[in-house]
């Protein structure tokens, strides 16, 4: 596969040498040409990303030509569907650089991945008086499953605080870690502030205390190259729909030793070895954790999304998004009355802010009128909003198909808000 071809072409056409041709990439996303979005700025990809033709085609092909239930039929079509499903699993393995594809479990999304670990690992290995370390940056999906676990088994939740810039206070993390720490669950990238916590260092520190670590990669996987072996995390979850894949499919990576030691979470077909009314024995991972017919076309679509971002180059995408973030941040800083939340040194392409005197929801409505789609509210991260004493923020998030034009619209939209809320 020649990944450099589109780049070389862009170089010929322009004196300015972009690392990445977003305009060309935009043409892969049919929705960007529809009247609802065309000419407007879609800056809410952190909630869910749009889908390229390559993903849509893959899902369509699955249903049009390659669909049957998997792991069951002896006929050719089922064998083909099964093969595609397992090829998709192996693509995810490569994407995360996991050792084995049996460490890749297909789930509905990041949320289900965290819940699976909280139940199947948590109920067995975390008990009364044990401690679970979370952080103030977590999305509700990486808080609530642990709270439910803590209630079931009598464990305690210990959150790591953040400073004004939105960085985790590492001294506090160090203090919280101890022999009672059984689990550390931390985000790879904050969805509300963009902060990238030093996860590799945090994992090392947790392991030194004998704790296992789950990384919530919902916002990490779309923007960062993930290497679970280098990170040495015990679990990693992400959602397909945020990496330009279908919704309803996600991934849980778990180290093989953990997956072998964990009991099944849900029972049903596909996860057994043999069933009788006296005793059921379970299939080895990953099947042990994939009860029932999975999201077959979703796995195919996710594999196509991984192919797509890999072909464009995750580093190129990240550099492009970062350039947009930098420009937007610089220009926002110059507007009186705009306050930026989250100024960590290392950030994902997320810009959270407030405009003095205007509630985020009013801002969202006015932005929409000006053709700018953003998220307004608490972003399912209420603890971080409480930390700053605000009801919510306006969040612009950048993806591979965003351009400087979108940044211009964003800045103009801020002026419109200021016109109304003088």
């Amino acid at each position, binding site marked *: 596969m020649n990944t450099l071809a589109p780049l070389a072409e862009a170089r010929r056409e322009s004196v300015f040498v972009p690392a990445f041709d977003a305009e060309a990439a935009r043409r892969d996303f049919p929705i960007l040409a529809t009247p609802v979005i065309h000419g407007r700025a879609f800056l809410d990809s952190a909630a869910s990303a749009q889908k390229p033709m390559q993903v849509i085609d893959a899902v369509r092909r699955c249903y049009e030509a390659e669909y049957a239930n998997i792991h069951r039929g002896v006929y050719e079509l089922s064998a083909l569907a099964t093969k595609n499903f397992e090829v998709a699993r192996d693509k995810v393995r490569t994407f995360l650089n996991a050792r084995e594809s049996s460490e890749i479990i297909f789930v509905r999304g990041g949320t289900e991945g965290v819940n699976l670990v909280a139940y199947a690992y948590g109920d067995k290995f975390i008990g009364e008086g044990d401690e679970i370390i979370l952080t103030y940056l977590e999305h509700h999906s990486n808080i609530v499953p642990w709270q439910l676990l803590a209630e079931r088994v009598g464990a305690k939740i210990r959150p790591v605080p953040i400073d004004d810039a939105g960085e985790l206070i590492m001294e506090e993390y160090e203090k919280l870690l101890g022999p009672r720490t059984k689990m550390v669950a931390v985000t790879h990238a904050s969805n509300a502030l963009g902060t990238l916590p030093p996860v590799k260092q945090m994992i090392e520190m947790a392991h030194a205390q004998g704790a296992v670590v789950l990384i919530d990669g919902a916002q990490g996987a779309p923007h960062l190259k993930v290497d679970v072996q280098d990170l040495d995390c015990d679990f990693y979850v992400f959602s397909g729909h945020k990496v330009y894949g279908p919704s309803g499919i996600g991934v849980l990576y778990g180290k093989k030793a953990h997956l072998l030691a964990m009991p099944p979470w849900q029972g049903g077909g596909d996860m057994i070895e043999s069933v009788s009314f006296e005793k059921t024995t379970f299939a080895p991972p990953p099947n042990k954790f994939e009860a029932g017919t999975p999201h077959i076309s979703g796995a195919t679509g996710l594999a196509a999304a991984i192919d797509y971002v890999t072909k464009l180059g995750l580093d190129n995408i990240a550099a492009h998004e970062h350039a947009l973030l930098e420009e937007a941040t610089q220009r926002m800083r110059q507007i009186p009355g705009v306050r930026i939340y989250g100024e960590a040194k290392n950030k994902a392409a997320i810009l959270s802010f407030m405009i003095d*005197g*205007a*509630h*985020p*929801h*009013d801002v969202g*409505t*006015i932005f929409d*009128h000006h053709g700018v789609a953003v998220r*307004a*509210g*608490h972003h399912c991260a*209420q603890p971080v*909003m409480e930390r700053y004493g605000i*009801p*919510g923020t306006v969040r612009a998030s950048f993806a591979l198909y965003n351009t400087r034009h979108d940044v211009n619209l964003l800045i103009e939209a801020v002026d*419109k808000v200021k*016109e*109304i*809320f003088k």
Partner: protein
Amino acid sequence: MSSELRELYQEVILDHGRTPRNFHKPEGANHHANGHNPLCGDRVTVHLKLKDDKVEDVGFEGSGCAISMASTSLMTEVLKGKTVTEAHALFHRFHDLLTGSEDSAGDAAVDTDDFERLMVLAGVREYPMRVKCATLGWHTMEAAIGTEADKVSTE
């Protein structure tokens, strides 16, 4: 600026949003309820002083967007002196105004002047996502009426 947006953010709404009226707990208030929109985080507490089925006083506290604050503020202004039945009727008319339905259009219990005051919020009709903001305070008011009255203090 588009006309719809101008209609939504009229000066009256901006004014009530910035400086909501009756933004306190009235003396002698005996019915209270908390309203919360978990989607956006808006929170209001409505306090009513009900006597013989009449709203003698009403106030509120809380935080939210301009639409929810203004709507609740205007509500407190029009509710003072109304009977519980009139309050319900007013809410139904107001709700219909926002959702574009006409179910209770001919409701005789609604005072025309009061309803006209609430017409400033008619622009919300164009923004279905914001109807919940405009009705939060009203739903909370209805809940407050339904609560049991505070025990009378003998102090």
